[in-house]
């Protein structure tokens, strides 16, 4: 007699905990064959605000970690993903990815985490500077994280896109509230589980699932979100920029087609630079 399998209740990862939407709303996802797979939390503006609160709370501690420590935590996250890559690939395939594509995306994603793990203790020397001012001051410019960054991931590739956008943002000490792919949200549920078992402190990365049209306006206007990193087109872009104007929020769009996320050019120092502030200090010399 065949055994009835235990299915998992998908929950989103917010503030280091697995929660349902506060609204108790869900939406159904079906696998590639059209069969019901699970009910996914349909996160609301309130869930987003809760996530921002969690991210804001985690921010100072994460920013104060040493660069070496952040590097090791990102590396640890890659270790978690590598160990469970079979499960992730399977989930991508279940929702329509070709096996080869899913495997390659997984490999690129893990390698990308390691790429940014390595950046943690290097970008400062490239983005900062000592400035030869014409007075008796030691004048230097260093980077600082912006704070809470909203990430709006592409629908496809669902997992690689999300990973590629989160990694450079947290590498410099920002915390993230991310909205996962609307069409293929399930891999982000799995990713949450891996984040929870990595050494990443709760609240540093918060993953929401739900509908872009419901959440983008709040990403745009929430004043505690200091920057938005989005894959968005047309009216979504305008909505994000309009909302951002109210608190002079930084907005960056990742204009990449699906295939481009797989390429080496989709990673690098630019993405780190986009989410740091520059601070210049004039320190007196002698007297």
């Amino acid at each position, binding site marked *: 007699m065949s055994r009835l399998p235990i299915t998992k209740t998908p929950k989103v990862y917010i503030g280091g905990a697995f929660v349902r939407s506060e609204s108790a709303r869900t939406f159904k996802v079906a696998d590639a064959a059209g069969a019901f797979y699970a009910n996914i939390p349909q996160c609301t503006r309130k869930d987003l605000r809760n996530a921002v609160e969690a991210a804001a709370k985690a921010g100072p501690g994460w920013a104060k970690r040493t660069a070496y420590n952040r590097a090791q935590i990102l590396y640890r996250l890659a270790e978690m993903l590598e160990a469970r890559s079979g499960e992730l690939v399977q989930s991508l395939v279940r929702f329509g990815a070709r096996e080869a594509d899913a495997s390659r995306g997984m490999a690129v994603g893990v390698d990308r985490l390691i790429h940014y793990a390595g950046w943690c203790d290097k970008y400062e020397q490239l983005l900062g500077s000592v400035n030869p001012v*014409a007075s008796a001051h030691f004048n230097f410019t260093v980077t600082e994280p912006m704070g809470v960054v909203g990430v709006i991931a592409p629908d496809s590739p669902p997992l690689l896109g999300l990973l590629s956008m989160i990694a450079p943002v947290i590498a410099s000490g920002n915390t993230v509230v991310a909205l996962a792919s609307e069409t293929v949200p399930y891999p982000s549920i799995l990713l949450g589980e891996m984040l929870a078992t990595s050494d990443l402190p709760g609240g540093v990365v918060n993953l929401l699932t739900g509908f872009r049209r419901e959440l983008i306006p709040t990403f745009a206007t929430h004043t505690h979100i200091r920057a938005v990193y989005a894959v968005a087109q047309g009216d979504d872009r305008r909505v994000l920029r309009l909302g951002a104007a109210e*608190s002079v929020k930084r907005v960056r769009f990742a204009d990449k087609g699906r295939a481009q996320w797989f390429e080496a050019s989709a990673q690098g120092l630019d993405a780190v630079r986009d989410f740091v502030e520059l601070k*210049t200090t004039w320190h007196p010399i002698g007297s």
Partner: protein
Amino acid sequence: MAAPRKSAGRPSPRLIFGDLWDFDPAPESADPKLKARYDLFIGGRFVRPRSGRTFDSINPGNERKLAEIALAGPADVNAAYAAAAKAFRPWAALPGRERGKYLFRIARLLQDRAREFAVAETLDGGKPIRESRDFDVPMAAAHFFYHAGWADKLEYVVPGASVSPLGVVGQVIPWNFPLLMLAWKLAPALAMGNCVVLKPAETTSITALKLAEILVDAGLPPGVVNFVTGAGETGAAVMGHPGAAKVAFTGSTAVGKAIMRQLAGTDRRMTMELGGKAANIVFDDAPIDQAVEGIVDGIFFNQGHVCCAGSRLLVQEGVADLVISKLRNRIRVLRVGDPMDKNTDLGAINSREQLATIRRLVAAGVREGASMYQPPCVLPEKGYYYPPTLFTGVTQSHRIAREEIFGPVLSILTFRTVDEAIEKANNTPYGLSAGVWTDKGSRILRMSTELKAGVVWANTFNRFDPSSPFGGYKESGFGREGGRQGLLDYASTA
């Protein structure tokens, strides 16, 4: 907090020097070589505005008309963008060495005519001649000189990537440092190989148009730089023009937000240098006399028309009475008056409108219960002037502690602990600059780490350098000006 009480301790000493003898006038007499009428500078030539309209530039020091300035309408802005677009390819294709040499020339020609420019700047904007002569003009020349040297070294700007210019850049600058802001904006854009359409502020167009004379003398190819003059409407046309690959704006946060909204439907790149409400923090171990000078510099430099002005003084309680009493004495001898007098410390407020804004906010300060001190001083009968003003008993919710006044008005608050200072300093939507006064190097670095501001001055204030990136956090804007980082804001990377 308590204002200094006459009964507590010894009476504060009174300086009587300035009370007994007045200074003889010491007017600067160099010829500013002004024209009666200034046209637009488009395609390397001075051209009459197609709009057919002009407006007057007033000397805020005496309310007399200085010159007539062309008012650029939409057709003029179009013409400027067309000229810049035409100039772009050959300019960007020039070897960096050659572009750099033009900028070096501009720096030198400006130095040659430094005094003439300083006088023009003071007449047009109202700032003391001492400041335009010793700060604005030399610093503007330094910016051209610094960026000139970058033009042939662009492959070093970003490690691992190559940079290229963006195209035509639209720039709008404010009236507080007309020539200097222009240099900050032009020099990096040109060094990178961009072309520019720039609008000076309505009340201070003259030094930009005088600089156009230098651009002609330097042989700069026509169209590389275009100046269109006018007010807000012209500015909106420059910012909103579809021919702009990037816009750079310096001005108020309100207008910055309006520009961001205006461009929300486009992918235009932006640099925003907006308002500020900087905390200037004095700890009890600070060198007090030096700090008092720094506080005065921080808020009264350029009549307080400075986006990064130290307009919120945070003093540690133990030294608050001492600092405030020394400050009162210090501002009693500040000389307010004719901007052209070499002894003047505070010149004219830039415009009638700005004077009204300052009066309105000061009235709000009084109404909300802060106590005001203004030294006795006789202001000239003609012109726009405002005395140096201190407010004590200010709380964080007072408008004068939250809103940018952009005038010679200092709000004084106190604190007890380092953490309280940090919290109060950061309790603002702005984040442009901050000052820290202490004898401890380690405390300077702690404060610098905690303060949410783009520039932190320690035991100094209002210092600038072309090699030192300047720009804000939060609602003070984004992007940097100066240094390698500022240069990069005018480039795309690949």
